[in-house]
């Protein structure tokens, strides 16, 4: 089967990039397809509907993280998993039609990354969850530009939040997480990122792909 389709990871400001990196469906490189001020980060792929396997989703995230951090880092508008396009022409059509919204979003999240924070109680622990929530808000809200509360999918989860943070404030955020962990031996903390700001962009591609 030929790799005549394109898989899109995200959109950045126009820039030529070509990276040897494992992509979705075994792709071996990610590169940019430009349209005016924008560039889509893509891989050649043999289908417009790749399987949503754990491995593929992980590759999607890793390409975005690499683009986000590569060579000093840049702002990325991430696509959700599964954006395959028939060819460059259809992709460029989408970039042309959605250029105002991509450009606005790139401005809105310029220089920012997403960080994830999950806090769990130990099993059978007796903790005041309201107090933990209030403390987390007090410590982290001031270092972030925006915050999204995600689903508490476990009874043990007290906090599951995504923070939009300026790159310049990442160190301060890291330190705040470290201090929070030091002060709470009774809690388990999972701190992840930086991610492309999935939870802070909302662009729906409905055009013919």
């Amino acid at each position, binding site marked *: 089967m030929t790799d005549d389709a394109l898989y899109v990871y995200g959109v950045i400001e126009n820039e030529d990039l070509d990276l040897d990196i494992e992509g979705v469906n075994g792709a071996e490189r990610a590169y940019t397809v430009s349209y005016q001020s924008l560039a889509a980060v893509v891989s050649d792929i043999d289908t417009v509907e790749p399987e949503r396997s754990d491995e593929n989703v992980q590759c999607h995230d890793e390409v975005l993280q690499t683009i986000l951090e590569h060579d000093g880092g840049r702002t990325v508008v991430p696509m959700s998993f599964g954006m395959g396009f028939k060819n460059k022409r259809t992709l460029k059509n989408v970039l042309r039609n959605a250029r105002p919204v991509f450009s606005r979003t790139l401005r809105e999240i310029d220089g920012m990354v997403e960080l994830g924070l999950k806090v769990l109680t130990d099993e059978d622990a007796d903790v005041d969850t309201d107090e933990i929530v209030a403390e987390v808000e007090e410590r982290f809200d001031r270092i972030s530009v925006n915050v999204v509360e995600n689903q508490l999918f476990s009874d043990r989860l007290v906090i599951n939040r995504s923070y939009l943070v300026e790159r310049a404030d990442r160190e301060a955020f890291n330190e705040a997480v470290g201090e929070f962990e030091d002060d709470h031996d009774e809690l*388990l903390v999972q701190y992840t990122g930086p991610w492309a700001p999935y939870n802070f962009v909302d662009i729906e591609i409905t055009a013919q792909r």
Partner: protein
Amino acid sequence: MFIVDDILFQPFISILDAIHTLAVTEMYNIEGIQSDLKENQLLYELGERDQSEYESRKAELEAELETAELAHEQLDNKNIQIRQ
């Protein structure tokens, strides 16, 4: 006669249908299973579950999810049999 049957039978079908829908929704709670999958992953990442425990629980939950999705698919297709 048909009209009488129809009137008498209609609410009965609706109730059975509703009970069946409730039972399927309750027994095959897709959202609940997806939450358990996420919890399993998180506890593994945090070192609370070892790899074999994580993998066996994952396989169990994925099988449950597949069954649940099939049940809901049948429900959506109205593949419900009501015996008179």
